[in-house]
């Protein structure tokens, strides 16, 4: 029988505290771990019915029963914020911040706060959010409406890239039927990475560029991704805990080579290997990436899908890289550790590590001073060449990559992008020079 793994850390905050014992029989939807008392964190529910096989400091492991159903143990009826808290919902765009905490402090009326649904789906390949917008736009709107209510927001926005015409049309149609009192508008975004970065969204929609250590609240905004809105609707209106996840699966798939497959309502805790099996199995691959090509991380067959898992990509095999390589690390893409991991897989020695000058250290990570607006990279590229690198590995956004492409090749430095092998696995255009479209 397949074993489902529920790590106790599935988002921001302290690890959840298990509330089941080994040998206990559990039903799908049943709470298996609580929010640690008095701390930031989230509850966890089992996505399958079965028997608890192990409870450790790291995870709860459940052996799934042969028969599984779609239904679940519903949440107790209560006010929306309490139900959201009880549901274990975290931000599903990747960060995993507990939604109850994010929505915990309503805007003062004079603030005229707003809720923005981030439908940028900025990572290439990932497409389950846009798919939801197309298929269930009213659920997205409903989730937004709940958030606006909880936050006492004066208005709502759905920020979506202009290129997703079908999704935009679906939204417009749903909006026509929308009867809420507070205005909701669609804000169209240009097709550039990283438009989906929280602060980039706020900048685009509200025209306010936040400092790197600020959260959207500073601009009177709350930003939620599409699936989060849908799951809010499910928690509040249907009493459904956060047990199922939407995913995009892609890459080196044996029976669906190069395809991008959207999966809705995958039970959390299922193994990565099972997901690939469900889609025909894996072909020869270089690495498995959990998340998007830009910000995802390496994962293994045995790892479980968690609440924040958005993509599972089997990337192309690693070709032999240059002898020596230099890294240009930025805040919007792969971290330094991730870049080193990639360099090692390319078989290249890292001879220089440069940071984009806009990549500001914030807490444990880095944030871009002005996402998607290049501050110039020539000096960094020259430094990397001077260090003796035979090529440069970057993880930059579209605009910064364009700058690198304006100088590195002329210097005889081939450019590798951290997203290359994931994108090649789906025959997606690589992140390279931006070709200016003829004036419209």
């Amino acid at each position, binding site marked *: 029988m397949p074993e489902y793994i529920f790590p106790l850390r599935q988002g921001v905050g302290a690890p959840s505290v298990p509330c089941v014992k080994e040998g206990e029989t559990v039903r799908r939807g049943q709470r298996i771990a609580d929010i640690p008392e008095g701390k930031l964190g989230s509850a966890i529910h089992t996505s399958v019915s079965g028997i608890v096989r192990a409870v450790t400091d790291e995870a709860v492991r459940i052996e799934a029963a042969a028969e599984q159903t779609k239904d679940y143990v519903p949440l107790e009826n209560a006010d929306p914020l309490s139900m959201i808290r009880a549901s274990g919902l975290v931000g599903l765009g990747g960060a995993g911040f507990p939604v109850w905490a994010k929505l915990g402090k309503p805007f003062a009326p004079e603030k005229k706060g707003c809720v923005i649904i981030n439908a940028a789906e900025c990572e290439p390949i990932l497409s389950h959010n846009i798919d939801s917008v197309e298929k269930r736009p009213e659920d997205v709107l409903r989730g937004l409406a709940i958030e606006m209510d909880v936050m006492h927001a004066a208005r709502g926005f759905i920020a979506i890239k202009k290129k997703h015409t079908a999704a935009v049309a679906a939204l417009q149609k749903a909006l026509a039927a929308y009867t809420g009192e507070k205005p909701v508008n669609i804000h169209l975004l240009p097709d550039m990475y990283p438009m989906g970065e929280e602060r980039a969204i706020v900048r685009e929609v509200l025209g306010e560029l936040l400092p790197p250590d600020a959260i959207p609240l500073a601009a009177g905004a709350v930003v939620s991704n599409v699936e989060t809105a849908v799951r809010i609707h499910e928690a509040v209106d249907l009493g459904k805990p956060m047990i199922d996840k939407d995913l995009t699966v892609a890459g080196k798939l044996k029976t669906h080579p190069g395809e991008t497959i959207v999966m809705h309502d995958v039970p959390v805790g299922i193994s990565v290997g099972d997901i690939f099996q469900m889609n025909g199995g894996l072909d020869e691959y270089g690495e498995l990436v959990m998340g998007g090509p830009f910000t995802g991380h390496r994962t293994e067959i045995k790892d479980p899908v968690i609440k924040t898992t958005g993509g599972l990509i089997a990337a192309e095999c690693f070709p032999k890289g240059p002898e020596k390589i230099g890294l240009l690390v930025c805040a919007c893409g792969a971290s330094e550790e991730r870049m080193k991991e990639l360099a090692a897989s390319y078989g290249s020695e890292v001879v220089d590590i440069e940071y984009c000058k806009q990549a500001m250290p914030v807490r444990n990570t880095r944030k871009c001073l002005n996402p998607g607006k290049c501050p*110039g990279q*020539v000096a960094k590229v*020259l430094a990397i060449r001077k260090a003796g690198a035979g090529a440069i590995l970057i993880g930059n956004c579209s605009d*910064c990559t364009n700058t690198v492409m*304006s100088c590195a090749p002329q210097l005889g430095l081939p450019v590798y992008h951290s997203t290359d092998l994931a994108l090649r696995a789906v025959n997606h255009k690589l992140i390279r020079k931006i070709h200016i479209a003829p004036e419209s």
Partner: protein
Amino acid sequence: MSMTKEMAQQHLKDPAVFCCRRQKGLVISEADLEDPDIFDDMEEAGLLKLSDDGLTVEQVLGSTLTKDVEALTPITKDVLDHVHEVSTEDKKAPAASAEPSVPAETAKTVPQASIDNGVLHIHIDQAEKLSGFTLDIPLPKGPGLPPVSAAGPASAASAAAPTGKKKVIRTLVKKHMKITDVVIGDETKIENGTITIDGSIVEKAVKEDPLCKSLALDVIKPDQRHVYTNTIMDVCPIATKVEGELGEGVTKVADGVVFMLTGVDEDGVQVHEFGSSEGYLDEKMYFGHPGCADKNDIIIRCHAVIARKSGMTRPGPFAAHKCEDYIIQAVRDQLKKYDGEVVREELCEDCRREGNPRVVLVKEIMGQGAMHDNVICPTEPCGVKGGQKNVDCGNVPIMLTPNQVRDGSIHALTCIGPATKEMTRHYIREPLVEGLAADPELDLIGVVFVGSPQVNDEKMWVSERLGTLLETLDIDGCIITTEGFGNNHIDFIQHIGQAGKRGIPVVGVSFCAYQGQLVVGNKYATAMVEENMDAGGFENNIAGCSCVTPEVAARAIQMLKNKMAGVEVKPAPKKWNNAVINANNDLLGLSETVLVDSGTLH
């Protein structure tokens, strides 16, 4: 990378180049423009081609882009809605702090008083750190010329600092005795302004050292300069004590005459092979520079032939100096009792100016051995006898008073690469010593001489000793000079680092120029003054060409004052550019640095 507001202010006159792709409708700010400091590297790498129709930073800031433009593209007027016209008047307007390079025209046309708040732009060129140092120095008040110039009110540094109370420790009077002719005759004497040297003295002099095989004397008059000369080993004044020890009392200096030592070995190999200055004298000496003969000086040439293959050893060249000193001593003995016309009486004072910034001058001198040596504190001014060789002293820093230096405490064994070496005459009239000692705004504690050993480990060791010395002197600033090119720069930059890491404001003075990229640097080498006077920016074979001159000294002293006062010294462009030096000369009211074309142009 793109610039900050502050950086943009420093680069207003530099070309405007987009750092990244920019789209139509953009209002251009400094965040869109590449830092001009890396243009040289970019051009070298073939990434950038600046064109004449490119606009400057100040012309494009605030303009709106009318087309999408690719990264690293120089901005031209056809992609902008408008271009800021920058009138000449605007340029002159003392826009407070950040008026950039402009120097030349600005300074010339503007009366000195309005240089207030302008910028002193000093340059040194070289690449890496040391290279290309251009220094833009905003001058908060008055040009702050070296003391002599009555022109300015007290300069910036001084305005803040109290004027120290002067306390004279000792005085030295240098009596310059008028000499109008020199003849080689039967006895050595001085009469009526004429020096006569016994021609047979060379026979006795040569016995001073067995490595010296022969000596020859002749006289070169000012109107006979186009004569062939072997490599110039030294220019040495005739000076002698008549009262007191070195640095005090009374010294007589023969005016209008100098000794010049030249030398080859028995095989005719130049002592300074390779890097010698043999050739026609008028082409091989920079007449008028501190270490050289002046235009109207009579030159007594002493030519030595030393033992075969001894040119690259320590004893060989030293033998020549020693034997020449025997001859000079005979003249000194006559000068002591000569009571002829005194052209000039020069009063030198060792003094404290308590309350003023405490500064020292550090002079790095040759100490690698062979002819790379210096004799310190001989018995007679500029002599050899009685002194200790720098190399034998382990090249450790040795402190002298300004008066000791001005009384000929250094006898230089000039080595190969004559253009950048300081000869004996240089030290008795060293412009930095003169300038610092006389400056009423400073308190010159002393002059440190530190040798440059051959071995790198020893260089570090010596430099650390210097660092300790500087720290314990509790100084507020220092100027460090070096002579030569290459090997000596390793010590030089160490010395700057030793001062810098102790938080002591430091100004470096050196020949760097075109090959500055070969010169090492460190983060403390931010205030550098260039000595180069060669048109190609190379170390040429003209003795005394690229050394400390009065202009170099004035720039260095002003830069030190600004550094101590916390006034920003702007970075130099990467490549050597004499215009930067002249801009600074202009701002200080100094004469232009005119370069010599010696065939090193490339």
